[in-house]
């Protein structure tokens, strides 16, 4: 034990490791807080956590299920991450997911296209719908400083209701119950393995996260976006066209949110169903916050949240606790992270107090 000192002095720990330690600490505190809540609703915390773990990772099937749940969260997380790095909050990922999912399904069940192309057009339609859904909040934010947090939240409600209306009043499958006609086989997003609905969307999500990471780290445009997020005045002084970039960042974020919806409808449900993806958009936003805007961290956080979701299904069967317990745990994680980021260093991506009106 004398050759290499394993524990280095605090100040030599690299920044990313410090962040990771902080994140892990926040996670532990949140899980402890979750245990208290579980105890309050009359269940044994240890038993509930054991069932959660078993439900998420207990067998190959369960792991596949966790990956399936994680897929839309990864894509939504990348969507939220793009905005977050640009210093913007896109809380409307949920709404973009819904309109994107509907648009992709619409392409799937109306158009007649050859296999392959059909999928691409469907996903493209999803992205377009997502981008269109955020275009007004984006322009109003860039030109008139209209608060994008509130406008995107309000647009969520409109998106969910509008897609429900279109599904039930306009495109309802005859004899079906709040769902559209199934999409054509040519529009199926390929699945990765037999016996599970895990699909190409997982690869797309991972590629997007890696792409965003490389973009932010190695390109000038990526640097401009990051600078705009961390210090908008400096960015403007340095020649970044802030207004144009705000619109570009939010549209990209919206398009990726719409893509997540397209992946869900073309890869998993193969039709549009009312309430087809409850809360994936919000989980994505939380994953991006937990990762503090790091795209690779988003993947890890999203995998964790996907596992929680999968585990919560078994938890609801085997224990008396409701599956919404996991959203309480997620909220606790974010609270702990938001506090510890600011204890560690005041200011930063999600720490800067920039809201004033």
């Amino acid at each position, binding site marked *: 034990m004398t050759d290499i000192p394993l524990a280095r002095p605090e100040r030599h720990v690299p920044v990313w490791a410090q962040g990771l330690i902080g994140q892990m600490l926040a996670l532990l505190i949140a899980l402890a807080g979750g245990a208290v*809540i579980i105890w*309050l*609703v*009359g269940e044994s915390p240890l038993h509930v956590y054991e069932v959660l773990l078993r439900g998420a990772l207990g067998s190959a099937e369960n792991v596949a299920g966790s990956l399936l749940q994680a897929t839309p969260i990864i894509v939504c997380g990348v969507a939220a991450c793009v905005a977050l790095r640009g210093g913007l*909050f896109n*809380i409307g990922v949920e709404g973009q997911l819904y309109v994107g999912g509907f648009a992709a399904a619409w392409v799937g069940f109306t158009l007649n296209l050859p296999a392959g192309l059909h999928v691409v057009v469907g996903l493209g339609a999803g992205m377009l719908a997502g981008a269109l859904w955020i275009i*007004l909040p984006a322009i*109003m934010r860039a*030109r*008139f*400083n*209209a*608060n994008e*947090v*509130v*406008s995107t*939240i*309000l*647009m969520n*409600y*409109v998106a969910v*209701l*509008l897609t429900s*209306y279109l599904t*039930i*009043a306009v495109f309802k499958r005859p004899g079906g119950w709040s769902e559209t006609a199934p999409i054509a086989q040519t529009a199926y997003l390929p699945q990765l393995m037999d016996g599970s609905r895990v699909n190409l969307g997982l690869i797309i999500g991972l590629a997007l996260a890696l792409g965003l990471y490389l973009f932010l780290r190695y390109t000038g445009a990526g640097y401009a976006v990051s600078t705009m997020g*961390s*210090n908008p005045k*400096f960015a403007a*002084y340095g020649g970044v066209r802030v207004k144009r970039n705000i619109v570009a960042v939010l549209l990209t974020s919206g398009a990726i949110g719409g893509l997540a919806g397209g992946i869900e409808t073309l890869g998993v449900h193969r039709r549009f169903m009312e309430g087809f993806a409850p809360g994936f958009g*919000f989980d994505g*936003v*939380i994953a991006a*916050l937990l990762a503090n805007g790091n795209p690779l961290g988003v993947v890890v956080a999203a995998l964790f949240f996907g596992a929680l979701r999968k585990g919560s299904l078994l938890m609801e069967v085997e224990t*008396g*606790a*409701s599956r*919404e317990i*996991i*959203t*309480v745990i*997620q*909220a*606790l994680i*974010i*609270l702990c992270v*938001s*506090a510890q*980021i*600011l204890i560690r*260093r*005041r*200011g*930063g991506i*999600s*720490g800067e*107090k920039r*809201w*004033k*009106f």
Partner: protein
Amino acid sequence: MEILTQVFTISLIAAILRTTAPILLVALGGAFTTKAGIFNIGLEGQMLMGAFFGVLGSMWTGSALGGLVFGVTASVLMAVIFSVFVVTLRANEVVVGLALNIMAGGLTISLTKAIFGVRGSIVNPAIVGMPRIHVPLIHDIRPLGQILSGYTPLVYTAFALVFLVWVILFRTRLGLYIRVTGEKPEAAQSLGIRTARMQHIASLICGVLAGAAGVHLSLGYIVMFAENMSSGRGFMAVAVLIFSGGDPVKVLLGCLLFGFADAASLRLQTMGVSSYLVLMVPFVVSVSALFLLSWRQRPKIIRETLQHLTAPVVAKGQGS
């Protein structure tokens, strides 16, 4: 025919007052945090907790007043957590507010299942709703009585509070300190005003009113609890606060607009328009109002930007 149109408009006015009350209560609460310079996106969650614990308290104590006390206490607890994180720990308002909203949603559903063994909603004869007040004398005068009488106490409180909040904010020392804290925190501090304490107080008052708004939803408006029953009203209140700047009179006008949208959409529903489209109306109205008013306010923004540009730029050393 004439009588029919008259009843139509009178009952619509009554419906508007009834639908305005919850959003007005929560928005007036938010007026305090807005004036204190806090962007309070957590109103939705505070309202939801108020609604849930209002029902719980009403069942446990057997009185609507007990429900009000329970609901307001729960909401104030959320407000305390919010202000400890935002003011004391200086965490980001949007992140904390969002987390608390998500927590309120998950917690109320989990507790509903744990206590009542059901999902979705709590409908129970043991829930005691708010009594309706029949204003003496006015109640029997036909059109006036229909408009002014027969509401729950919280509806009257909501409208009376517009005046009270205005007095507190603009005619008392507390109000002055809160406003200075929000507008010029540095000046406030140099005058010896404890800005952190002012922000805590504002958040507490906000918690009380948001809780009352929630209780009104579950014990006054209807007598039941449904999951996520605040259904975006807290966010609409935030939209009102943004374009009113927290000024109580403007808050009232904004809330009346949403009350109207709400009441009109209920009317559309009875006329056979799809309920999905109808439910969209208040959200479309609020987001349009937000856009239109931010567009109208652009000269002010330009002015402020000019001020920013002429003011010395404070360098922030720690970009990431």
